[in-house]
């Protein structure tokens, strides 16, 4: 994509209209910057599984920070600085979640392999049942039904960020419950 001065001036103009509440201008702006943002994210995120999540986080940050753009200043420096910071923040968040996330897929695989004689299946079901309703729903939709974050959030009628928080807390609780169960059985 070739970005010339006219393009940036147009986007600055669209930002100005967006800040005044013009939805059509904002839609046009988002559609036009999306490929650039995606390209930017794609170049910086090595784990391809996370590209879409990071892209969505970045666009969301852009949306929340758009009031901080001063229309009397050039658009590109503000835009790239925000996108760069947003990518960095999203990567940090993803890293934290990955580090603390319970590998539920592994647990399910182990449960399938070791058969029901250990009662692992039952234990997972019991642990799931012990989760608070909203965390259980989030974990079920994402990990058992295999929905994407977007679809699951839409199903529950909540934001993507809220869904991730619920799921993340669910994983942590699930881990705690399973560890406690394992300790008791020993």
């Amino acid at each position: 994509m070739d970005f010339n001065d006219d393009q940036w001036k147009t986007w600055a103009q669209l930002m100005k209209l967006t800040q005044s509440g013009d939805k059509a201008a904002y839609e046009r702006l988002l559609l036009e910057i999306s490929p650039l943002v995606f390209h930017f994210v794609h170049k910086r995120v090595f784990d391809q599984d996370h590209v879409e999540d990071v892209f969505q986080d970045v666009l969301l940050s852009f949306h929340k920070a758009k009031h901080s753009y001063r229309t009397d200043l050039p658009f590109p420096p503000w835009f790239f600085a925000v996108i760069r910071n947003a990518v960095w923040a999203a990567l940090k968040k993803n890293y934290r979640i990955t580090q603390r996330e319970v590998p539920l897929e592994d647990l399910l695989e182990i449960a399938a392999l070791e058969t029901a004689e250990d009662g692992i299946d039952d234990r997972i079901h019991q642990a799931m049942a012990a989760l608070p309703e909203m965390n259980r729903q989030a974990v079920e939709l994402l990990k058992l039904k295999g929905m994407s974050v977007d679809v699951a959030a839409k199903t529950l009628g909540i934001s993507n960020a809220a869904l991730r928080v619920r799921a993340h807390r669910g994983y942590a609780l699930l881990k705690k419950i399973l560890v406690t169960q394992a300790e008791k059985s020993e």
Partner: protein
Amino acid sequence: MSGLIDIKTAKSALPEPRRRLVDQLVADNKPSKPAPSVLGQWLAWLGFSLVAVVFSLFLIGPQFEIMDRLTEPASGGFLLLTFILAAFSAWVGIASSMPQYRPRWAPRMVAGFLILFLFAMPFLFFDRESLAGVVTLDMADGWFCARTVVWIALPTWLMLGWMASRNASFYPRWTGAWLGISAFLLGAGTIQLHCARWETCHMLMDHLLPMLLFIFLPIWIGGYWFARWRK
């Protein structure tokens, strides 16, 4: 050119999740007032700080020999450095609450060096009295100076925090720290205009130590408060 793109075509070319996200963001768009510039916010802080210092001095009164102290290199320099550092920290704190802020080592190094020098100044230029004597006097007056530093720092930090929370910080803890340093230094400078005890242990324990003891609070609270815009 932007004006030539067909919205429907561009939209249909997007994958489903992105299309839905765009729709949600567009639906959520409301008129917003552009955030004031860093300079504008810093000037607001400057005005508020002047009012806070003058009001505090009106309540507690300046020290009797203040003019002599201001003209002495050591005490004048100490006061000047305290207020300059407070202003510098407020500037960097406000700047760090903007989404386009990029953390750099230079301001941290400069501020760190100057704060170290500020803490060293009482050892280098002022009289040393016994720590026991300072504690005895502090117990007698209920740690008046330390309490006053905190009382001046609190509204200043809240005011700065209110401004910064309306921006969009990607480094909320750093923002909290810078603003906290600024607020405590403003308190330390103000109490030094009132307190006639230019003694090493007293200046350190009652004027500067509150910053070291309580700086974790603005950092911790800032981590939540200045990150709220992303929720």
